[in-house]
């Protein structure tokens, strides 16, 4: 078994894709014509977005992610050589500032923002060694 996809249910798929492109520089790899599903070009593990109506179509019930709500108990972590610049770009693009990047005792720089849907996104430097 291997991790293939992380799929986040969102209120508006195209808007979320546009946000991720602007805030994190990630390009879409696929946007389904229904506008209910999209994948980002994130390497071997795909970050994808599904429209909230897809949850019911899959016979699922979910707690929708909303910006005004407390963040759900998961995060997406993007690794970059320059977390400070990434943080600035994200906040300029409309991400909510949560914690500006700081150097951790183990030598990694880590910051947090919340995306347009209120999901937590971590911006961090690669772990040394």
């Amino acid at each position: 078994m291997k991790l293939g996809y992380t799929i986040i249910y969102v209120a508006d798929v195209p808007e979320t894709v546009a946000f991720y492109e602007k805030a994190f520089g990630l390009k879409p790899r696929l946007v389904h014509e229904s506008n209910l599903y999209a994948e980002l070009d994130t390497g071997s593990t795909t970050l994808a977005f599904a429209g909230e109506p897809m949850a019911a179509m899959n016979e699922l019930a979910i707690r929708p992610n909303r910006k005004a709500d407390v963040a759900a108990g998961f995060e997406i972590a993007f690794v970059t050589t320059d977390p400070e610049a990434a943080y600035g770009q994200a906040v300029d693009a409309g991400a909510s500032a949560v914690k500006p990047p700081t150097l951790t005792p183990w030598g990694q720089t880590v910051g947090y923002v919340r995306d347009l849907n209120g999901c937590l996104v971590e911006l961090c430097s690669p772990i040394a060694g």
Partner: protein
Amino acid sequence: MPVPAGYREQSNPDRNSVEAVWTYLAREDIVHRVLPDGRCDVILRFEFDGGRPIGQIEPLIAGPATSYHLVPITRGVGYAGLRLRPGTAGAVLGVDLPSLADRVFIGQDAIRIAPALASLCAPAQGVEILTSRLVAFVARRQKLDQGSDTFARSLALIDALHTGGGRLSVSDLAKMHGIDERTVRRYIKMSTGLAPKELSMVLQFHRALRLLRDVRLDPASAAAEAGYADQAHMTRVFRKLGGFTPAAMPEVTLANLPL
């Protein structure tokens, strides 16, 4: 579940007030079980002959329901209907939706509460004329209120409730959307005609129905996933909202056929 002979439905992919357009030409006497679904239907009823409406065309408004009702349908009677998306009926019909809850208005009673319906009842050469008349009616009417902020907020709340399978509380919805609980209650009641708890119960019931019927989960798993305290709780809700038990779901039940 089987669709009665003579029933046709087309869902509307556009994101406007119309969820589906349907027609039903009854070729036999049946008793139809209408399940509450949190929606409101506008219907034209007529007698038909060879698929063509004859005689008087009567409007019907089926208000939002909290429990099932049984509707006797006579052979030779036809229906053309629109299912309105949850939260849009009040604006489209220009009515106070909460006052319509658990009621069906027929003919003059329907025209009394929504006078604009009278224009839909002119004689028609075919059933498809009635459906396009209904669609045009909604297209004209939905512009009245849909630009408003209240309308958009109400729809967002209803969508969240749907997405959560009826399992989110008013306090969850309030926190999620950054508004207070009183406002959540008011918006949902105003836009669907049902209190949030009533609407949640309907949505949870439908999800449990689908988990049992389509996903074929065993009753204990379905009850747990749908968010009922236990199987007995699910059974009580099925009796109240559907008039049947999970163990003996009637063949004719069709969640999407309103009348």
